[in-house]
């Protein structure tokens, strides 16, 4: 259990380091951009890589027809065993449509969830801050009065009036 936690912590730190380093030395870093602006050789290199990423984005952005999954399933099921081919699951697969994953479905609620989380955090901070501050002020006040009476009438009476 402890090893797992340690491994998770290591992974977390590694990911954070990677992100921080990427910000500092990645292509979007200010000093890199400044250098690229003045260096034709690096500009050419970046241009080449950008061409690949543009082509990749274009590939990803091409949608396929909605019934492609159903057709592919139909074709794949048709070459399976007889018992599989006519099972209920196979019949469902033959008319299956691509569905967004749960993360994709929840993506539209992300900003709302972030806002709610921020509000809750602020409320918690205010509440805990207010309570802890009021308790602290009360204790400080008691201590001050206790010290005052202790110096004037002695510790015993001060303890009786303002017990700490």
């Amino acid at each position: 259990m402890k090893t797992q936690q340690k491994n998770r912590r290591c992974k977390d730190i590694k990911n954070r380091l990677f992100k921080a380093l990427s910000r500092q030395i990645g292509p979007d870093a200010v000093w890199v951009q400044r250098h690229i602006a003045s260096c034709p050789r690096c500009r050419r290199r970046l241009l080449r890589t950008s061409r690949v990423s543009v082509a990749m984005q274009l590939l990803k952005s091409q949608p396929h027809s909605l019934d492609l999954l159903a057709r592919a399933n139909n074709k794949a099921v048709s070459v399976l065993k007889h018992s599989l081919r006519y099972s209920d699951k196979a019949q469902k697969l033959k008319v299956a449509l691509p569905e967004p994953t749960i993360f994709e479905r929840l993506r539209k609620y992300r900003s709302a969830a972030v806002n709610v989380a921020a509000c809750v955090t602020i409320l918690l901070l205010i509440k805990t801050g207010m309570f802890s501050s009021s308790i602290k002020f009360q204790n400080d006040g008691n201590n001050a009065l206790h010290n005052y009476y202790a110096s004037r009438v002695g510790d015993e009476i001060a303890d009786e009036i303002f017990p700490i």
Partner: protein
Amino acid sequence: MAGQVNIAGLSWDITIPEVLSGTQRWVLSAMQKHGPELVTMLWRILANEQDVCDAYQDTFLKLAHYESGQKPQYVRAYVFRTAANTALSMLRHKIVERKRVQMLQIQNTTNTGLDLNSGLLQEKLRSCIARLPKNLREIVTLHDLAELPYRQVGRILEITPATARVYRCKAIRLLAAWMNKSENQI
């Protein structure tokens, strides 16, 4: 899965695990679970619906006949690797066929705008991916086209995520160099 057996003259309904039953229902489960991702990956590699269906069918046929119908230990890894390899070998065949008529096409087509350029760019990228060495090609296919995170890619290819990152970086550099070269040639 339910089955019936006759013991002492009576028929008993019993539950048999899918793997042991020999009915290979896990093939259908794999199809249900990984089908959408596979179709997306195959579409991005092949860009032709008929070819996607063929590669998909081939993948699940191979899965059903893997070691005389045994379930592979890692179905996801098996399915993704098989699909990617099948699709890329189909793509290579297509590229060879296309090269025969390429010159004629170049003579007949004129640069008419963004649509044509984007199509050419995609075709160029596909042919460059098909040319990549196997280890780099698998990374690009799984990470960029199937959009699997490095952790999963590493698990499928039995390498560490860090190695996957290094391979991907090398692959992008190679692709950039080749795409730039072919651009200059045209």
